[in-house]
């Protein structure tokens, strides 16, 4: 009985002392293929880039809007440090909006990455649907609207519209 109690206590102590592994960012390879790549420049030179501060855990907030020249004074490609859902890129510059902002993020919408250069131009769009609660479950897809095949990890997100109720 005493031996059993000692073993149990020792196991509990060992378990408490060893930190659990951080949840693996399982979706990172799937939704952030741009890691280890670089931002080459803005998609449109004359428009400012809106930068965000914060993180996915604490929430993002607007930091400032700057021209590419401020983000990369020497017009050098910027390393992508982190990525959120493939659309928000953390850049290797945390001072463009002044001190104390922390790491800065920019939307992939406004910048060109090395990944963009590697991908051929595509006319593929994600078909969207208005939530009117009265749309048919099956409608013909127009030829111009080609449903994009999402990676399995992302396809399970609730943002994908499910079939609606049949048309009355």
């Amino acid at each position: 009985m005493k031996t059993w109690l000692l073993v149990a206590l020792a196991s509990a102590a060992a378990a408490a002392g060893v930190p659990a592994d951080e949840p693996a960012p399982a979706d990172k390879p799937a939704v952030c293929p741009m890691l280890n790549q670089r931002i080459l420049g803005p998609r449109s030179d004359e428009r400012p880039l809106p930068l965000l501060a914060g993180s996915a855990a604490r929430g993002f907030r607007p930091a400032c809007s700057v021209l590419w020249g401020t983000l990369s004074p020497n017009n050098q490609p910027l390393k992508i440090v982190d990525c959120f859902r493939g659309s928000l890129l953390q850049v290797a510059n945390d001072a463009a909006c002044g001190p104390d902002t922390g790491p800065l993020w920019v939307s992939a919408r406004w910048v060109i990455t090395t990944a963009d250069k590697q991908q051929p131009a595509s006319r593929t769009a994600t078909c969207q649907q208005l939530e009117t609660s009265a749309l048919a479950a099956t409608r013909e897809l127009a030829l111009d609207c080609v449903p994009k095949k999402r990676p399995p990890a992302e396809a399970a997100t609730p943002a994908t519209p499910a079939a609606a109720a049949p048309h009355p």
Partner: protein
Amino acid sequence: MAGTTGGAASAAGKPRAARSSMFRAVLHSLLLASVALFFLNFNLFGTASASKRFSQDLVYAWFGNEAWLYPRVPPVPPGAAQHAAPPRVVVVMIDEEALALRAARWPVPVEFHAQFLAELEVLRPRAILLDFLLIDAAARQDTCDLLTVASRLRHNGIALYLAVTTPADLEPMDAAACRDASGAVIHPAQVFTPVSVQRQVDGSDFVSRRYPFEQRTATAAAGSGVVSAAVRMYCDAVSAPAACVARLTRARTADAGFELAWSPEGDPFNQRWSHASCIETASPVRAILNQPALPRESPCPPVATLFAAALLDPQADPALGADNQDLFKLADGSFLLVGGNFRGSGDLITTPMHTLLPGVYYHAAALENLLAFDGRPKVRKEFRTPNIGFYAYDLLVLWVLAAIFQWRQAWVQRVHPGDHSPFELSAAARAWLAPLIARCPTPIWIIATAVLLLLLSTYKSLQLIAVAVTVASLVAVELRVAPTAEVRERIRGLQVYLTTMALSLLVIIVAIWVGYRWLRLPPGDWLGYFSFVAFGFFVARTAILEFGRRVDELYVARTTGGGRQ
């Protein structure tokens, strides 16, 4: 000499009698028209209103794409410069997918709005409406982020509008006492223009056809309320905003609104995301062959729509251009109306095409109407001042129609005294048909007729066939039994009937066009006019004119001392 004098008196009396007869006919047609006007506006249980609204919906359903009816800002063709065209109205739709792209969830947090405004700034729009009520408590930092971004946009010349229920909705943001880089307090009223997003629906069918000018109580003075979003956005874009708002809101009742012209065709831009086709190809024959004339609109909305997810994630819509050229072409200098598209939020409107769309389209359609009609949208008679003038216009139109009807009836009476309609069976045909039917016992033929009509009521596809067979049969009977002279007279009568119907239709079209184009009335009266021309005058005539004639005869007898009763 006496004979000569008598002949002159007789000759002078003929024009006088003709004038008197003409005068009486004019008066009788006025009586008929005023009865028609009363019945067209006899709104027991809202029945008249439903008929007018349906007439209006049909016009927009079948002609809403035509520039002569609804001169919308045309979509910018590929390759054309946006600045050359008038400003566009673009809906930006936030949904769960967009929120997830920024690690946010419904209800849309203030910090998301702050980020999103910063993203929209890149598009360089003319103005942005946030169709969200920011009435939930928010952290001070989030409020300050929103006000800071909004202040920057305002400084860069982008007008910002925020949906409110009352101006007091801005007070919590004011209490945050946020400061800009120079240390000055940012007041929300300095950066956001509060606007009303209240909706109006028609009580008869709950369709949102009307857009309010302002939101105020019935006791408050006109122009003292919170101006509606589309009205404020339009007026701020013209050279004299205050005068524009005053012109649109003055001398109106609290429930007044303008009519929304609506196009059944989707905006071509939406084809990039829409599952449904944005080009309607329905034929008007559908409406005739017992097919439903409404709804015609597809789920592809008539206003260009950019999903927020496509803006935030280039993978969602890479076709917006490697340099975002399609995106900038759409949004540069446009009015951006940011709304929500969330399952179960209940923010839906029933459009005049009788389909459901998220609520932000209500404001987008209203703004498009104001732009299309140069700030002079269509307003119903009941919301006009003085409205009796517009009803007098109705009376005038009906008077002309009644005069045409009277002329036709006079012609029919001259040829066939006692006949009222060219479609009535001749005496010979009646005399031939009655014995034929009389071969069956009365209960049999009545029950057979009832069963036949029951079947026709149940199976609507049979109705058109039944009408065609009946008309052909009756024509065959008339041709067989009626004398040749009578058949010839009937054909002439039919020609006169069709001519007067065509003339009446022309009068109706001109009247509706004058009312629409110059009096700014919605096209809701044509069905009433037409039904009176086709059927209503027949009914009203027997009831009213015969009585009127009898009264007239009594009056003449009394004044001439004849004493005929």
